[in-house]
């Protein structure tokens, strides 16, 4: 999201911290590759590609946030978790980030571990936990699904932004002194707005897909698949 928070440019965070998060990201992705292989069937393969392409396109839209020269963009963690599941979802976002870093220079290559940890691992994990929880609690209606998508998207965005603040606290190359709280505040406030936008887009997309092709929504597939489709989906 933020250019700052999410796509971290080379040199913003120091080497050792970047390397440590690189190891964390690599470990997390290894788990995702293992688990994701089990998930990736004929229906999920094109869906994973499309989710990645969609997120790629959406991340290109940057919203300038007027304080502190930061810009933000949508993240897509909740959308990915909803449509292709946590494992493949995290991989989709990681692929988007790697291609952006390699081809567009968007986010430093040496900082990929940090970005992947924030956007692919933390955001997707938070989103999926919320989705699993809310789908259980909320009524299985279209509204319930929309609320789930909205909340998961908004919260995951803010948490991912806080991931950047923690990383900056651990290894920011410029000492902000007492301004770290200010950074955290700016990040939280700006990402709250982005989170709302992201929540709306995620909710509309997921609800449309669930109405027409409920079989494509991963989050609806596992728990009591048949009952879910009947209530949320209706007829194809």
């Amino acid at each position: 999201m933020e250019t700052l928070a999410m796509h971290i440019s080379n040199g913003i965070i120091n080497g050792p911290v970047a390397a440590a998060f690189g190891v964390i990201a690599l470990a997390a992705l290894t788990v995702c590759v293992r688990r994701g292989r089990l998930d990736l069937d004929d229906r999920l393969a094109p869906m994973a590609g499309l989710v990645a392409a969609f997120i790629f396109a959406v991340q290109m839209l940057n919203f300038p946030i007027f304080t502190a020269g930061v810009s933000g963009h949508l993240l897509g963690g909740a959308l990915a978790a909803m449509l292709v599941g946590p494992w493949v979802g995290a991989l989709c976002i990681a692929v988007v980030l790697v291609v952006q870093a390699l081809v567009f220079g968007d986010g430093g290559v040496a900082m990929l571990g940090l970005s992947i940890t924030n956007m692919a691992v933390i955001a997707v994990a938070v989103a999926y936990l919320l989705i699993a929880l809310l789908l259980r609690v909320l009524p299985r209606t279209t509204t319930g699904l929309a609320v789930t998508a909205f909340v998961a998207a908004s919260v995951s965005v803010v948490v991912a932004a806080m991931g950047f603040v923690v990383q900056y606290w651990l290894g920011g190359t410029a000492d902000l002194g007492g301004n770290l709280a200010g950074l955290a505040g700016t990040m939280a406030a700006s990402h709250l707005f982005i989170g709302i936008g992201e929540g709306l887009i995620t909710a509309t997309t997921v609800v449309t897909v669930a109405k027409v092709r409920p079989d494509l929504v991963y989050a609806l597939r596992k728990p009591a698949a048949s009952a879910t489709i009947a209530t949320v989906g209706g007829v194809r």
Partner: protein
Amino acid sequence: MGAGHAHVLYRESDSPVHRLPPEVKIVAMVAFTVAVVATAREALWAFGAYALLVAVVAGLARVSARWLLVRSTIELPFVLFAFALPFLGAGERVDLLGLSLSAEGLYGAWNILAKGTLGVWASLLLAATTTTRDLIVGLDRLRCPQILTQIAIFMLRYLDVLVGEARRMRIARLSRGDDPRFLWQLRGFAAGVGSLFLRAFERGERVYLAMLSRGYTGRMPAVWPGAGAATAGQWLVGATVPVLAGAVAATAAVLT
């Protein structure tokens, strides 16, 4: 969609850099970036040396300095952050042009500016000399897990599907009397984002099934082991840039 799968940043040419196998270029680019990031920010001369390396490679790849500079504007938000640092930063202050600036913040700004710019230049050079297909081939040859390359292949393919579908929906709206201007275009787009996704998926699913029925097994044909995998000589040629960068980084580490 029928147009080749080259991306906007690719500069068609037949330079020595273009001819290097993609996996060599990827490794060289990543190694170069790591060397740059590992360099102490006080070693100003080292960054000059890195810039010189970038310039030499750009010259060999026949990528013009102007193109490189224009494309570097992607970095602008980071640069703005960098400019704020001398004012926000803590610690010792220095007076410059009548402004009281934080020395720590100044170094921090320089650090972000120099390392960020060099990193962007390195990836732009990779992008300018490598098609997206080659990029995936390179990642595959570097033993990137197949599930990742598969997602990447579909992502790049479906980007065109998505853009094409969005264009068709926009034309459909226009021909039904919608006349969006400026920001109001967003309203139509936002209302249709769900159906855009679905339409793109169903088109993409047909593409996927067509690929399956023509023998697609999850890996691009002739990629593995594939003709044109890097030879030892090419690895050596590709290694020159990161080795030089590593030498600069080591010297800088010794000197500071």
